[in-house]
């Protein structure tokens, strides 16, 4: 059971990748890239999902995937042209498929009605092409196909029995009852093919299912398995062949075409092709005759020799994949014999549904338990620290840099760096995997809110640690929803404002200051500050006599219980959105903020640490403590002259840097390392830039130099500390703290604290 569960987990992991591939492919098609490779990749993705789902008996998923796949198969064999309309439908179908996968996984439910509607819509695309099928049975099958399908897809959950075997909408039936429908078929076009494989056939890795599938390309087939020659288990020779197939085939093509199917198994099976319908009893009788000599006379075979005329359930089920794979048959039927290679491709995985192939030709992927990588990363971190310690000790002994020892150490350092980079690269992943889910979200939210939105994505290849990636999806989802629901105007409003009715939402990822920054920008109306302010006052979230800057008003939307939507929509407006996002982001050591320009739109900026990444930092001395300041924040370092420092207000002072004045912040004072700051002229000033672009001049006592450090979490054994981003271990083996530059700037920022920040109010 556990093993099966484990396989299932793998399957769902693969589904995620496959769904991403699917959507990626469809989006590429949308952009006009509809070459064979893309379409094939899209088909493979759906096909693999179906195959795997079949192995786990995930019925609704299999059914929907099947319909989807049928259409894609028609598309890739160029039976229907690729059009933007079709791609749009396929994209929506991929959304439904994703829902099915989630539902099968136990996460969420599928809107069965929507799924059925989608399935019906998909079928309409293949349907017109099925019409020219010349067989008289076609009209009957077609009507059945359209009428019955939604019921099958939507309502039937209870089992495989009848519907599944026939997949109703398919023009092939394998139950005998269906014969009546086919009465119109000309006797001349009915063939009876009896196939009795010899063991050699299997030895050469041939497979009857493939043969049957090929036959089905010629026309509707009914296959009957005679397994009466099958011995009891204890007498069974696993390598021997015991069964015989009897196939009733309707085709306009002649005997030659049928023989061609068996070209590759010539001599490896007994083949009888007769025109006309052989009554089932006759077929079985003839089969029994053939089979009779096979069993050894001394073995007890009473049961086997009894003429069992019943059509056994099991073999029919075994046929199911064959029938499934043959679904596009009505489409291909008019074409003179489909190329066998193309036919084989989908059949092979269908016959072995348990084997899931990962698409991406030439790409092999190793799945590794993340814990092993974590452990490796820890060890390499140790190695780096150790190497640094070693280098420092050697330096203390005054060994000449040209000596063998020193040179060897230099090489060691190089190697250590390389190992570290490689190990980090293993766990780093592009944010693409998260971004890929967003186009769907935008489509859905835009549909729901009646807005037109186009998503532009940037920096999808920005890499970030896997642990961070997993935490990105929720905040991005919220920010995008918010941007469309609250940010963008309705198409009419946009037109009135002289804008393109289609709004643009930009989702971008970038590295900045050793963090990953995600920006969600819309070109909507911007935040209505008056309304935000009045609502915040009305709801008692802020006191009415507070004077707030524009930026502070914008950030009021992060207050718990704040919601500006006039009506509560499905999408947002329950007021649980942004404050929850803010809290979850903060729990990760991240920050979120919003800037807005009236009439031009708003930008959400989310920044998260790159957890286990190494960091290039400046090592400085502050009040006897060693601190690391992320190099990415540092604009320049300088030694201030007395005339450049100007007092401002009772305690503050600013530094004149060229023509601008930058607030001076004594790091030691801010972090409570000391209570009085020494004159800034005694120290070194590091001009830093925060995430919001604000500048500050941090005063430190001395600079030790630049170093790459391994980030160690403080939260693991303790908790987050304000003003400190993380810790690291220096060459002397001591812990040094990495400064959180933004927090330090905020801590010393004068004036009213941000009202969205109750603790700050309390602290001051």
């Amino acid at each position: 059971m556990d093993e099966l569960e484990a396989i299932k987990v793998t399957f769902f992991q693969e589904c995620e990748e496959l769904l991403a591939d699917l959507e990626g492919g469809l989006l590429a098609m949308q952009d006009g890239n509809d070459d064979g490779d893309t379409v094939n990749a899209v088909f493979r993705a759906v096909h693999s999902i179906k195959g795997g789902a079949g192995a786990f008996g995930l019925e609704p998923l299999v059914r929907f995937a099947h319909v989807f796949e049928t259409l894609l198969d028609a598309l890739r064999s160029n039976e229907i042209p690729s059009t933007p309309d079709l791609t749009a439908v396929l994209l929506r179908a991929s959304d439904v498929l994703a829902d099915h996968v989630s539902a099968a996984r136990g996460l969420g439910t599928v809107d069965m009605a929507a799924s059925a509607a989608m399935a019906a819509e998909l079928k309409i695309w293949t349907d017109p092409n099925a019409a020219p099928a010349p067989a008289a049975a076609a009209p009957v099958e077609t009507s059945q196909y359209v009428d019955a399908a939604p019921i099958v897809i939507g309502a039937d959950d209870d089992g495989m029995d009848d519907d599944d075997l026939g997949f109703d909408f398919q023009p092939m039936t394998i139950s005998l009852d269906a014969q009546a429908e086919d009465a119109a078929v000309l006797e001349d076009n009915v063939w009876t093919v009896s196939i009795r494989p010899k063991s050699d056939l299997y030895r050469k890795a041939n497979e009857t299912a493939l043969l049957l599938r090929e036959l089905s390309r010629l026309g509707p087939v009914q296959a009957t398995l005679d397994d009466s020659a099958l011995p009891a288990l204890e007498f069974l020779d696993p390598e021997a062949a015991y069964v015989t197939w009897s196939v009733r085939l309707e085709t306009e093509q002649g005997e030659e075409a049928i023989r061609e199917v068996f070209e590759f198994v010539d001599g490896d099976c007994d083949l009888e092709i007769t025109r006309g319908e052989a009554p089932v009893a006759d077929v079985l009788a003839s089969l029994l005759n053939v089979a009779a000599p096979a069993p050894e006379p001394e073995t007890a075979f009473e049961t086997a020799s009894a003429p069992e005329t019943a059509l056994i359930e099991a073999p029919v089920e075994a046929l199911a994949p064959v029938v499934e794979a043959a679904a596009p048959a009505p489409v291909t039927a008019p074409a003179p014999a489909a190329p066998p290679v193309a036919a084989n491709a989908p059949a092979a995985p269908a016959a072995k549904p348990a084997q899931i192939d990962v698409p991406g030709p030439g790409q092999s992927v190793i799945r590794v338990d993340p814990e092993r990588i974590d452990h490796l990363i820890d060890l390499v971190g140790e190695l780096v620290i150790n190497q640094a310690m070693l280098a420092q000790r050697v330096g203390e002994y005054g060994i000449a840099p040209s000596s063998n020892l020193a040179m060897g150490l230099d090489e060691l350092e190089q190697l250590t760096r390389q190992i570290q980079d490689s190990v980090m690269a293993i766990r780093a992943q592009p944010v693409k995997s998260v971004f890929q889910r967003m186009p769907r979200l935008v489509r859905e939210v835009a549909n729901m809110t009646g807005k037109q939105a186009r998503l532009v994505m940037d920096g999808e290849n920005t890499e970030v640690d896997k642990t961070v990636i997993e935490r990105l999806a929720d905040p991005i989802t919220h920010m995008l929803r918010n941007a469309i629901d609250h940010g963008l105007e309705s198409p009419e409003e946009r037109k009135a404002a002289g804008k393109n009715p289609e709004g643009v939402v930009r989702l971008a990822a970038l590295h900045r200051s050793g963090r990953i920054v995600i920006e969600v920008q819309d070109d909507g109306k911007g935040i209505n500050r008056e309304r935000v302010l009045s609502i915040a006052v009305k709801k008692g979230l802020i006191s009415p006599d507070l004077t707030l800057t524009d930026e502070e008003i914008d950030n009021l939307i992060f207050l718990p219980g704040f919601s500006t939507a006039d009506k509560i929509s499905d999408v947002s407006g329950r007021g649980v959105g942004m404050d929850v996002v803010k809290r979850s982001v903060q729990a990760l050591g991240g920050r979120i903020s919003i800037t807005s320009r009236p009439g031009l739109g708003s930008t959400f900026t989310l920044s998260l640490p790159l957890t286990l990444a190494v960091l290039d930092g400046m090592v400085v001395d502050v009040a006897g403590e060693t601190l690391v300041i992320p190099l990415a924040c540092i604009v320049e370092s300088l030694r201030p002259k007395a005339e450049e420092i100007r007092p401002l207000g009772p305690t503050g002072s600013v530094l004149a840097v060229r023509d601008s004045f930058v607030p001076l912040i004594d790091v030691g004072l801010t972090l409570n390392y000391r209570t009085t700051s020494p004159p800034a002229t005694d120290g070194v000033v590091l001009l830093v830039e925060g995430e919001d672009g604000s500048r500050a001049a941090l005063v430190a006592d001395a600079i030790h130099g630049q170093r790459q450090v391994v980030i160690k979490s403080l939260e693991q054994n303790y908790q987050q500390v304000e003003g400190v981003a993380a810790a690291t271990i220096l060459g002397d083996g001591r812990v040094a703290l990495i400064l959180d530059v933004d927090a330090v700037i905020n801590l010393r920022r004068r004036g009213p604290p941000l009202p969205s920040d109750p603790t700050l109010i309390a602290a001051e």
Partner: protein
Amino acid sequence: MNEPTHIASKETRELISFRVGEQEYCVDIMAVREIRGWSPATTLPQSPAYMRGVINLRGAVLPIMDLACRIGMQTTEPNVRSVFIVVQAGDRTVGLLVDAVSDILSITDEMCQPTPDIACENVRHFVRGIISIEGRMISEISLDRLLPEREALAA
């Protein structure tokens, strides 16, 4: 170290006892990872007085807590005999700065008495029970209460 002073009857537990000021305390030996000599810690800003800072314990950042200060007594002045006991408290590992380690005790539950109802809030909060052995009184520390709740900073 003395020999275990109590013959193991049923349900014995082993505790490590140590000195904090003039008092004796102990923790369950199963929670103790190691005992190390004092080394200077890196001060953590914006932290309570009982947090002595962090040290490097084989690559991990280990917070050091002044146990005396935590339970409301005087701040410990570390000297050469000071040690810290590395203990597992929940999912966190923390070092407890104490004056000296005394010995290992084997006790049974009947030797353990509930904490006397004294006014001191800290004692009631951090002391699980009191063990009386050979006329000594040793208080068992409740480890899961030592570290503050992890709180996300609203900054």
